[in-house]
């Protein structure tokens, strides 16, 4: 039971759900049904993209993040805010102010993930230089893209960049450094990402490429927003003067789509964002027609992480804020490239194991029966009105036909089939 809970990023609050079906229609993998009156999630098909969360008008789809009780268990609490944080509090607030305010809300240490984003950009270039095939290499940054590939495009698993995303690298470095420098046992250090991402919690509790995540939890930008805003309003002037940490313009740029490929000067690269456009481009890769592309940045949220469902600021405003910061902080390198090369050689950034294919179950284990079921599904579909009204509780007529074949619905559940 608790296993299922942890394994996925969202749950339906049945008290709040009014059964409108918006989530069901938005779901790219057809994991949701509204049957009989409330939405439910087939976790077997869920890829944690958060589309349902985004469209729910009643906040009935709830993200699962780390509770404050769980964070307080750690003696030494470290926050690593996603670079998206810098886009959330308006164009006047500078990064150092936000980092200091975060510390004040109850963390012992705040480390700007943007620095590691810049570092990871170098690692990508290094990987592409050292490995000439296969192509295109697909970014490993977005946890949902990896899940999407596992489920819908299993044959592309070997194209995923075998380098950990910035949040894992940041936590790995911090845990080691803090425990050594401050003499604190690793298990007493809690590293928490402040995240815009609905899938982050799952990638921490069930990492695909590590035995155990280096992070200890994630909380949403929404969760910290009010507290940080109150501090910023009160103490803005003094906070701005605090903190001398270097701010990475290159790293902050990773909050928006295209931030990952901006630095790839010598490699043909493409950036795609949004779940449907990502599916489309991956279909192209699967057909083998995109081998001219060397690096493919895919981010599930529209316009990249600033479009994450756990953010507060309008994503277009957020994008403008990020662009402003990248102009201010420029392209000046903040990370020592020799250190990156040395760590790269030690495999410090690498996956412990590759992303494994996990294709959706076919219509039947037995191939002959699966074909029969597919034919039956088509026959049923032909009889249906093809209006995709969703009243039966399935997102569209073709999915309803499949539910009928699999015994999960009856033909009479379709109001057009009743008489």
């Amino acid at each position, binding site marked *: 039971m608790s296993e299922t809970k942890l394994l996925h990023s969202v749950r339906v609050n049945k008290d709040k759900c009014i059964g409108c079906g918006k989530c069901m229609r938005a779901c790219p993998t057809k994991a949701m049904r509204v049957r009989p009156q409330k939405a439910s999630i087939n976790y077997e098909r869920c890829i944690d993209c958060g589309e349902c969360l985004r469209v729910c008008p009643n906040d009935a789809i709830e993200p699962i993040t780390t509770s404050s009780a769980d964070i307080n268990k750690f003696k030494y609490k470290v926050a690593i805010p996603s670079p998206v944080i810098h886009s959330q509090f308006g164009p006047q607030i500078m990064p150092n102010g936000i980092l200091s305010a975060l510390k004040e809300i109850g963390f012992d240490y705040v480390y700007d993930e943007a620095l590691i984003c810049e570092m990871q950009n170098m690692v990508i270039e290094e990987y592409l230089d050292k490995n000439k095939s296969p192509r295109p290499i697909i970014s490993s940054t977005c946890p949902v893209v990896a899940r999407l590939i596992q489920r819908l495009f299993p044959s592309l698993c070997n194209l995923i960049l075998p380098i950990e995303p910035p949040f894992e690298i940041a936590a790995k470095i911090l845990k080691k450094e803090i425990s050594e420098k401050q003499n604190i046992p690793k298990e007493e250090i809690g590293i928490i990402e402040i995240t815009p991402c609905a899938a982050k919690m799952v990638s921490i509790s069930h990492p695909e490429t590590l035995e155990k995540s280096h992070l200890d939890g994630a909380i949403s930008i929404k969760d910290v927003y009010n507290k940080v805003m109150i501090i910023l309003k009160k103490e803005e002037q003094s906070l701005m003067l605090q903190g001398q940490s270097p701010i990475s313009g290159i790293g902050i740029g990773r909050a928006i789509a295209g931030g990952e490929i901006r630095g790839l000067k010598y490699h043909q690269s493409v950036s795609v964002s949004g779940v449907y456009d990502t599916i489309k481009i991956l279909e192209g890769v699967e*057909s083998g027609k995109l081998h001219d592309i060397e690096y493919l940045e895919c981010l599930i949220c529209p316009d990249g992480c600033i479009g994450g469902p756990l953010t507060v600021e309008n994503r277009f405003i957020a994008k403008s804020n990020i662009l402003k910061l990248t102009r201010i902080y420029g392209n000046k390198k903040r990370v020592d490239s020799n250190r990156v090369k040395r760590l790269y050689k030690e495999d410090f950034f690498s996956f412990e194991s590759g992303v494994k294919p996990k294709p959706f179950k*076919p219509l039947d284990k037995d*191939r002959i029966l699966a074909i029969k079921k*597919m034919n039956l599904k088509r026959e049923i579909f032909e009889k249906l009105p093809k209006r995709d009204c969703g009243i039966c509780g399935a997102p569209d007529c073709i999915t309803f036909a499949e539910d009928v074949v699999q015994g999960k619905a009856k033909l009479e559940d379709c109001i057009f089939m009743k008489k």
Partner: protein
Amino acid sequence: MDSEVVFKQEFEINGGDFVNAGESASKLKNILKEIGIDTDIIRRLAIAAYEAEVNVVTYARHGIMRILIYPEKILLTVEDEGQGIKDIDLAMQPGYSTATDEIREMGFGAGLGLPNMKKNADIFNISSTVDKGTKLEITMNLNDKNVRD
């Protein structure tokens, strides 16, 4: 042999329709995923089908792609009405192409289609008559290991 066919579907391909080039291969791929064909077989067949489809669009007036699934194998045939191939051995050489500059500018006609199909197929057969058309047969063997749990 035909009595053993457990699934059959045809797709029409229109010569010169670069807008929809790849649609049939894509539909075919989704069928194979739904019935649980092994990931690697789908990948190889989808690449071969895409190349074949693009060839019809590029060089022929019209074509039919057929998928026949038998208990032990998948047979993909692509038959077209078009200019045909004069020298098949030459056409099978990587990089050889008769494509016009215009077609190359669209990103097609690199001369890798036929060799790529052969590379991905378990069995590959091709026959052609100049000014009539070309017929391709791509076979993928299925073994029982390919039934997914």
